[in-house]
């Protein structure tokens, strides 16, 4: 039945299918799509599911693979082999838009979703992390969003019993209308434990639905956040997805048990585009067909139509393939945990997915058309030209008094204030594996079988991305790797969550491509493959785009968990050394974003290797990578436990404030050994080491009138964020 132009336009708009995409669909089907097929294409050809604007660039991550990679199939979590039978699965994902609409549930369901990507592989979740970007605290709704997001992450993560061990919270005006909420999860496969895959296998095997009943969650999409709601717009309100961490906990235990007992052929979580994506993807990957009886799907709302069932984003549901002989055991197992497990279909050889409603065939469609044949776009971009490089940076003509005021200012606000009011809401120790939690930049857990230290850190500094997208992207991998190195940890693998604005704008796409290239290069140099990831495009509101933000999650390994260097001064009379890598200087925080010099990824890689070696051979009492805000701020933060330092070198004001990539603070009683180590190294000509100060109780004296009262700094820092996370919302 041919559609008239007006109806076609409306339908395309409703299902978010472009005209060209519609033509392509007609071409592939060799006819016009049936009513029931519109939602299938709408879901599977969406940017979120198909990666149509990013796919050709993401393929570059394939170059970073090495022998440690067990699985990097793109959609689910990647798995790397740590040796000794221990394997780690991990992935990062965004939940930006839902969190802007309903922050508590948006963030909570983000955590739930990423966890499912982990345990669907058979890995027990052992850690959660998050990467958050908020706007100006004074922006409309921002306080409500901040409190809601943290509360949501806390409520879900704590209840499901997985520790939230690290994270990063950034603030920048560019996120005021598009906050970023990225969630990361890590799972552990212990020696001998089975990995579960997601390809449908075995003609005649049952397709089994497990978990929560299906309701209208997420159906009809999300309305624009700026739309006001009144009691007459019931129909327009998005059906907010509600997460239930208790239910998820039951799902984790039952699925892991089923997988380890060999009752499951393959399994996939129902995430974005729910039943549609899981069924079609499993069939396509396994090169099989499937008969799916939508009327067999357990429903919370019996009025649901086939389309609604296909599009529902109800949480905490999985799709499994199991052999007929194992079905009874499967049902019994899930019933023990109080969950529904019911047959909704069957696998067949013929490569079509046939959708039935009360035995009536609604449609029969080749899954490859939806999965493999999704559009691939080559959005225009230009080669990266570092538009904000300058030959010289303006002199930082500050008085000591101004520096002091600035420093105390950022320490007392959201820029550099303590994040403790946030992470104090997260259970960091459930699982009894945590050695360093969220109070440190790098989280470290002790692997139960080998006793080795597993490390996790997130990366990407928005200010650096504003200075230069390529440098910012290098830094998003190298900075966490540096933070790990100074604790004796070797970075092993990377996951990413690429948050960008509108990819149809060449300037944004150029930043995207430059970022992917930089991350690829960094990953190859570090021998840390990018094994999984996620892309979030269209973080744009009324023409205003976010800062391009390639958030990363880096995992690493340490021989053991003893003798970990602290993040703060902890003992008097030790030398405070500063190691500087020459070559790149940025403008100061709060100034016009610019940079001078070159970012040399090769040298940064060498620095990382050397620092890691030094951290194990000449262990420091404390070590830190100097962040944005310069050396003075870094030392101030290291003094917050009550032991500060007394400088015996009179540095210029600008030296205390300069943003240099990179500077490391190293606190030790073996200064000569450390200096010699670098003098004899390959970087001898590229680094300089300053013997800056001596640690001293209750004193922070950086010379030239830069003296601080530690109790005052402690108070400013600890109170900075307190008022924002104390339950503004009921």
């Amino acid at each position, binding site marked *: 039945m041919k559609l008239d132009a007006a109806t076609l336009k409306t339908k395309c708009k409703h299902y978010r299918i472009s005209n060209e995409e519609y033509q392509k669909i007609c071409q592939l089907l060799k006819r016009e799509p049936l009513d029931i097929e519109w939602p299938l294409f709408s879901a599977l050809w969406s940017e979120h599911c198909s990666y149509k604007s990013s796919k050709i660039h993401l393929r570059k991550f394939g170059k970073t693979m090495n022998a440690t990679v067990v699985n990097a199939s793109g959609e689910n979590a990647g798995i790397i082999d740590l040796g000794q039978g221990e394997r780690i699965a991990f992935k990062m994902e965004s939940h930006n838009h839902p969190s802007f609409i309903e922050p508590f549930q948006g963030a909570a369901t983000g955590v739930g979703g990423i966890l499912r990507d982990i345990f669907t592989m058979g890995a027990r979740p052992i850690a959660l992390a998050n990467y958050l970007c908020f706007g100006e605290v004074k922006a409309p709704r921002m306080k409500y969003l901040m409190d809601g997001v943290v509360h949501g992450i806390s409520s879900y993560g704590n209840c499901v019993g997985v520790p939230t061990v690290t994270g990063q919270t950034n603030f920048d005006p560019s996120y005021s209308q598009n906050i970023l909420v990225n969630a990361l999860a890590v799972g552990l496969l212990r020696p001998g434990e089975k990995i579960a895959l997601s390809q449908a296998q075995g003609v005649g095997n049952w397709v089994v639905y497990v978990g929560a009943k299906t309701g209208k969650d997420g159906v009809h999409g999300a309305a624009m956040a700026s739309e006001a709601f009144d009691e007459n717009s019931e129909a327009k309100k998005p059906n907010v997805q509600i997460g239930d961490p*208790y239910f998820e906990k039951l799902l984790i235990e039952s699925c892991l048990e089923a997988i380890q007992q060999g009752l499951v052929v393959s399994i996939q979580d129902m995430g974005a585009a729910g039943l549609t994506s899981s069924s079609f993807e499993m069939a396509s990957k396994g090169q099989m067909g499937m008969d799916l009886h939508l009327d067999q799907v357990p429903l919370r709302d019996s009025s649901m139509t086939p389309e609604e069932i296909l599009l529902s984003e109800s949480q905490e549901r999985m799709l499994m393939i199991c052999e007929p002989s194992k079905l009874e055991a499967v049902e019994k197992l899930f019933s023990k945990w109080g969950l529904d497990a019911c047959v909704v279909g069957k696998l067949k050889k013929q490569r079509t997915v046939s959708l039935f409603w009360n035995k009536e065939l609604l449609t029969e469609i080749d899954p490859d058309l939806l999965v493999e044949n999704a559009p691939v776009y080559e959005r225009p971009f230009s080669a990266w030209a570092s538009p904000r490089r300058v030959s010289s940076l303006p002199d930082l003509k500050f008085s000591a008094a101004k520096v002091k005021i600035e420093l105390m200012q950022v320490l007392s606000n959201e820029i550099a204030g303590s994040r403790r009011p946030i992470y104090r809401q997260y259970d960091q120790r459930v699982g*009894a594996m945590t050695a360093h939690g969220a109070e440190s930049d790098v989280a470290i857990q002790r692997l139960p079988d080998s006793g080795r230290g597993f490390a996790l850190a997130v990366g990407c500094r928005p200010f650096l991305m504003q200075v230069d997208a390529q440098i910012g992207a290098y830094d998003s991998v190298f900075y966490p790797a540096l933070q790990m190195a100074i604790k004796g940890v070797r970075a092993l693998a990377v996951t990413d969550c690429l948050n960008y604005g509108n990819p149809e704008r060449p300037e944004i796409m150029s930043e995207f491509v430059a970022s992917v290239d930089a991350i690829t290069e960094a990953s190859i140099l570090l021998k840390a493959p990018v094994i999984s990831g996620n892309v979030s495009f269209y973080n744009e509101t009324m023409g205003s785009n976010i800062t391009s933000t390639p958030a990363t999650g880096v995992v690493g390994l340490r021989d053991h968990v003893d003798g970990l260097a602290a993040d703060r001064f902890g003992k008097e009379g030790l030398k405070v050394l500063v190691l500087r890598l020459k070559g790149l200087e940025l403008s100061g925080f709060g100034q016009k974003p610019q940079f001078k010099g070159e970012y040399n990824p090769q040298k940064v890689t060498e620095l990382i290797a050397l620092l890691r070696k030094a951290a194990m051979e000449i262990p420091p009492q404390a070590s830190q990578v100097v962040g944005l805000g310069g050396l003075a701020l870094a030392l101030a933060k290291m003094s917050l436990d009550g032991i500060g330092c007394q400088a015996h070198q009179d540095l210029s004001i600008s030296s205390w404030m300069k943003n240099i990539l990179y500077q490391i603070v190293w606190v030790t009683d073996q200064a000569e050994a450390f200096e010699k180590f670098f003098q004899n190294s390959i970087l001898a000509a590229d680094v300089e080491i300053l013997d800056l100060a001596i640690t001293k109780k209750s004193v922070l004296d950086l010379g030239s009138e830069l003296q601080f009262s530690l109790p005052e700094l402690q108070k400013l820092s600890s109170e900075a964020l307190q008022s924002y996370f104390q339950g503004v919302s009921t």
Partner: protein
Amino acid sequence: MKKIGVLRFSGTNCDRDVFSWIQLKGFHPEYLWHLDQFAINDYEALILPGGFSFGDYLRSGALAARSPVMKSVKEFSKQGGPVLGICNGFQILCEAELLPGALVKNEGRRFIDDWVDLQCVGVSSRFASQVKGSIRLPIAHGDGRYYLPEKDLQALWDSGQVWFQYRNENPNGSVQGIAGVLSKNKNIAGLMPHPERAIADWMGGTDGWSFL
């Protein structure tokens, strides 16, 4: 050799941590599923671990306290068997009226994960009997505020049923900073902090080791 039973309710999270701890100490742990009864003579002690049984829905510990297994737990404790409730386990024991009082929402209305200083002010018949004076343990709870009516507090002290108090800082508004209590016969014990998370230097402390 008798076993130490580790109760598992729907939603319990810290069961595996407690199980490992028991093994490390050389005892014999066994999981007890909340829907089944157990032979009380087979066990030398029971531990109700922390977590979010039934999601903490309705009231923390309320639904778990009405699980079938609690029949055996009550019988076991009636016969003098030692029972330890940690965090959610403490909440369940209070809801089951095996311990006095109730645990309600933290005063600050938010979950707290932190290390706290505790003072040992009572003696249980079986748990932490070597612990004296002040110790440091981690807490992680949203509903840790201990409540007992004013009129019953003195009696609680008089019968030596106050087990631990928060020192220096009361993190959740518990009445008189009470962090743990004992039953009249001292065989049932409950506390909000997690001893199983402080049994190694790399964890940040070892004061929890001697609780078993």
